[in-house]
């Protein structure tokens, strides 16, 4: 492991907190983490905001009796008692679009972030634990995918898809956003695999997969958890970008698509702020809260950062 590997780990994304030291897990440690988690204001505030949006995504569509893309009301109305977020140029209910769009956002975050985490962990653990030629090859692959801009690839793929759904979009995003995770996990695995308890497990005849799953992964579970949160936020932002370019789902609505429509149909010069403020605000608040949650989690898991 080179010096800059550990530095990259911290710089993998600008939102990542300072390098997390590897902590050894035990039941006592997890109870202690829970104790600090319940008292961490950043974590609780971030969690509250994300949960609030999750509730809107779950309940919101039930409060309206029409679909997000139906032409239901008068055109270009500002927010009112009947249409909470106003209506679009075509008389679509902005609130209905927003609530359905939130669903796509969470779906993309979970699926895209989840797939990226899975691939990143698979490659990172394999490269870090096996080392040697396997590591060299996987490292090469990682570096190549790392340099290719995710959005550019998605752009070319999405253009050729006739029907675009939210789920394939999420999976494609996951497929191209794992490299920094693989690198960070590889570096951490390197530092863990020569520890005594790993040697002990190896002596007792445990296989590679078992050692990684039972001995190495639990010891970086806090890091894995934070990584997933960052990937979730990243997938949401990438999806919004892709949707905004006009390559969003063809069969539904998303927050990025709402912004795309708003700009396309001159909401800006017409001053229809209720059309473009909610989707962007939703994304910003969800992703921002996730980042702040991560800072909180970092303080919970890392004793050095705790404020007493």
């Amino acid at each position, binding site marked *: 492991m*080179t*010096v*800059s590997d550990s*530095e*990259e780990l*911290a*710089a*993998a*994304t*600008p*939102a*990542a*907190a*300072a*390098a997390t030291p590897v902590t050894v897990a035990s039941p006592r440690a997890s109870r202690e983490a829970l104790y600090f988690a319940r008292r961490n204001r950043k974590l609780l505030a971030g969690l509250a905001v994300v949960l609030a949006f999750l509730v809107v995504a779950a309940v919101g569509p039930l409060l309206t009796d029409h679909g997000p893309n139906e032409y239901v009301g008068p055109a270009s109305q500002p927010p009112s008692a009947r249409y909470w977020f106003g209506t679009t140029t075509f008389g679509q209910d902005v609130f209905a679009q927003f609530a359905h769009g939130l669903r796509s956002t969470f779906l993309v975050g979970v699926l895209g972030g989840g797939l990226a985490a899975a691939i990143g962990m698979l490659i990172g653990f394999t490269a870090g634990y096996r080392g040697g030629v396997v590591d060299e090859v996987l*490292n*090469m692959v990682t*570096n*190549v995918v*790392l*340099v*290719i*801009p*995710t*959005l*550019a*690839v998605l*752009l*070319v793929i999405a*253009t*050729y*898809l*006739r029907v675009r759904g939210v789920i394939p979009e999420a999976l494609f995003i996951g497929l191209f956003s794992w490299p920094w995770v693989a690198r960070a996990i590889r570096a951490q695995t390197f530092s863990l695999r020569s520890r005594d308890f790993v040697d002990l497990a190896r002596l007792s005849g445990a296989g590679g997969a078992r050692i990684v799953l039972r001995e190495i992964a639990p010891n970086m579970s806090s890091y894995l958890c934070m990584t997933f949160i960052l990937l979730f*936020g990243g997938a949401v*932002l990438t999806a*919004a*970008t892709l949707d*905004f*370019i*006009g*390559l969003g789902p063809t069969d539904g609505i998303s927050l*990025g698509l709402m*912004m795309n429509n708003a*700009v396309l149909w001159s909401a*800006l*010069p017409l*001053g229809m*702020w209720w059309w*473009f*403020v909610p*989707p*962007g605000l939703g994304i*910003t608040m969800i*992703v*921002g809260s*996730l*980042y*702040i949650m991560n*800072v909180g989690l970092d303080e919970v898991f890392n004793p*050095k950062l705790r404020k007493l």
Partner: protein
Amino acid sequence: MRRYFGRKLLIYALTFFVAVTVDWVIPRFMPGDPVQTMLARASLRPEASQAMQAYYTSVFGLDVPAWQQYLNFWGALAHGDLGVSIWLFPQPVTSVILRAIPYTIALLIPAILLSWVAGNKFGAYAARRRWLDNTVLPVGYVLTATPYMWLGILLAWALATVAGVFPIAGGYSFDVEPSWSLSFLANLLSHWFLPFASLFLVGFGGWAIGMRNMIIYELEADYSHYLEALGAPRRLVRRYAFRNALLPQLTGLALQLGVIVAGALVTEIVFSYPGLGYLILQAINNQDFFLIQGAFLFIIIGVLAANFLVDVVYVLVDPRTRTGMRGAT
């Protein structure tokens, strides 16, 4: 050092190879016939449609074996031939893109450099200063979480629609002719400012947070404590911490390039700024597949070149890469 650059160049060459291959594979192995898809969805004048049909069939050359198609693709690429645009038929894709590139670069380079420098300085200054730190942290996190286009939309709405200070769209006003006069440059600059500002702000938040976290980490390091124990002034310790913290920030810059470029594309769309992003939007709306594929290659080349530049800078600022350590690979 030769080994360091050798490895880097190998990776970049491999990346370029993969990117070109992806560019070739996707239209051919996606479900459906690409020629039919394109012509069915493109709204063309009849004479253009016929010309395109003949052109595409010959370009895709679907009658020759796949390996030969692939070699032909590379051959055309070597001549700078990326096909003909549908949207702006019959202009070649290369020249259409080259016309848009200067606008994108004029946005990207100042935004990246200024936000990186200013964000780092500010983040370093804010770290461990209680009051500033408590305000910078949330603001910075909200800024990095903001989708580029939404910040652009908000700025356009507030400063162009409501306040009317800046123009809302275009690279320059419709009623002026491009020239090297002072008034035209001022016009250009006033159209440039808002897209630049939204790119700058999102980047600034991210770098400020990154630097703030790194400085705190460095101030906890042994060498900082040692310096403090020796009685070194706080300013000196912070200066050492800053220099050490810059290295991961530089690596971070290389990692973020793709995201920043994507941000520039959508920002241009918000402001109808005539760069690569706006071109891509038009290409998508007009089903101009060659233009999109060409834009993809240009983005890849740009990101690879920028990555290489960061590598060179890394060697200049990090003595360890010069004295034989392999450094980041």
